[in-house]
């Protein structure tokens, strides 16, 4: 059993217990717990979260992908500005990108107005930010490898020899 095997299993289903993972990998629960504990300590395992389809819950959120152009700063490059942005709770995801813009920021809010205000009041005025373009998300089909509403209908026969 490699540690990566444990992480791959957990990445797909964080609810599995060390006992279950041990049974799947042919190791002991104590070994698995040890690996997990160490990984949590090293922040190799960052967090256990739940993927929720908010549309189903009736609690609608607005999502936007915001492209941010930056003039890199001496010594710290893009990192200082990225940090200023990722510290806001509204910035759900922040990536440094290659290509025509520099940071991709996924922003969530309750309304379009809220998202727009966040961008104009918090991101655009940061020194070094030279421009932003906001794209509002119309529908989330798939996230982190999971399809929200799968239309697959595969059904097996009960017995096949």
């Amino acid at each position: 059993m490699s540690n990566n095997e444990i992480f791959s299993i957990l990445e797909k289903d964080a609810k599995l217990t060390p006992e279950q993972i041990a049974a799947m990998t042919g190791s002991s629960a104590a070994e698995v717990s040890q690996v997990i504990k160490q990984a949590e300590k090293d922040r190799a395992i960052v967090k256990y979260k739940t993927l929720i389809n908010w549309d189903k819950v009736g609690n609608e959120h607005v999502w936007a992908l915001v492209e941010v152009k930056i003039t890199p700063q001496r010594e710290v490059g893009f990192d200082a500005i990225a940090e200023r942005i990722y510290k806001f709770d509204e910035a759900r995801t922040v990536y440094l990108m290659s290509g025509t813009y520099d940071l991709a920021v996924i922003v969530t809010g309750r309304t379009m107005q809220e998202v727009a205000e966040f961008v104009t009041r918090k991101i655009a005025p940061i020194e070094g930010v030279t421009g932003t373009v906001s794209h509002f998300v119309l529908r989330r089909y798939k996230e982190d490898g999971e399809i929200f509403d799968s239309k697959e209908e595969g059904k097996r026969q009960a017995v096949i020899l």
Partner: protein
Amino acid sequence: MTTIKPVTTENKPFTSQRVNNIAPSGIRKFFDLLASMNDVISLGVGEPDYTTPWNIREAAIYSLERGRTMYTSNLGMPELRKELSRHLEQRYGLHYNPDNELLITVGVSEALDLAMRATIDPGDQVLMGTPCYVAYPASVILSAGEPVIVPTYESNRFEIAPSTLESAITPHSKAILSGYPSNPTGAVLPREKMLQIAGIARRHNLLVMSDEIYARLVYGVEHTCFASLPGMKERTILLGGFSKAYAMTGWRIGYAAGPREIIAAMTKIHQHTIMCAPTMAQVAALEALRMNNDSVEEMVSDYNRRRQMFVKGLRDIGLSCFEPKGAFYAFPNISITGMNSETFAEKLLAEEKVAAVPGTAFGECGEGYVRCCYATSVPELEEALVRINRFVSKHK
């Protein structure tokens, strides 16, 4: 007035003697019971629980949109045969000429049938280890040959014993039909044993038909292709397919690889009965061979996790279960319950709504075992184990 009776047909069935020689399935009752029930956890399936990877489906859809709906060459699309040839070369270092040593078939089932019909004359014997896939003896009988059963045992990890195999050889022996990784036992045959069997085949001038449909589904061991053993390519018909490795069971696409004259003989039957494998399925198979290995490997590690978890669960219940290193079946020994396989399967289904296939469906020496397919979700496997545990505790 007298009526004239027809002379010959009074008691003569319309169905052929050959077909009548195939024993009816002994587990009809079990199937009927299963059909009448809801909410059953089925460990009785013999196929992946994945749907075909999207890139494969998409390639087939695209080809339909482009109107690729005509017959292909009898042998199968040249591109597919070329790609398959490359694939076999890469995996096993075996070179098959795509022009005349490969035939694309409707699943391994057709390839097996063709192999028998192309090589077996009435009275020829085909040796096979059992428990084995249900079609093995039937395909021999349909070719008017005689299946010769060589039992394998749990104590021997369900590996066919070369000495037993050799002692079953008679002047009528024509071929050995090998099926590893095995359905129903999940056994794989170690390379040393394969070498011994290859030696026997050469000494007695026997053909080997090797059904390697589960070749990609092996765990912690490497699959050895029979035809890759020294001196075996010229006397082996390799039967393979896409169903299990690429979750493509419903596409019905397989192949045979073998000596030119045998493939030519098989093609003769194929062209008169099937014409060619379905074009869209061939397109899909081509995409399967061209895609990278990641999704196959991902599926294999997923099966492996479920395999380890399920076999451990069976052992924790107190059922002896040898470690299956291939396919997606476990073959636990249920003798501690004192029931025979059929009773066990029927009662388990009736009392706990878990379907497993009686070992006797795969030959008499499957008595005392049931076949459980672990290609089902982890929560279902866990629930099945809880129920089997309750059942076994109650009856042992």
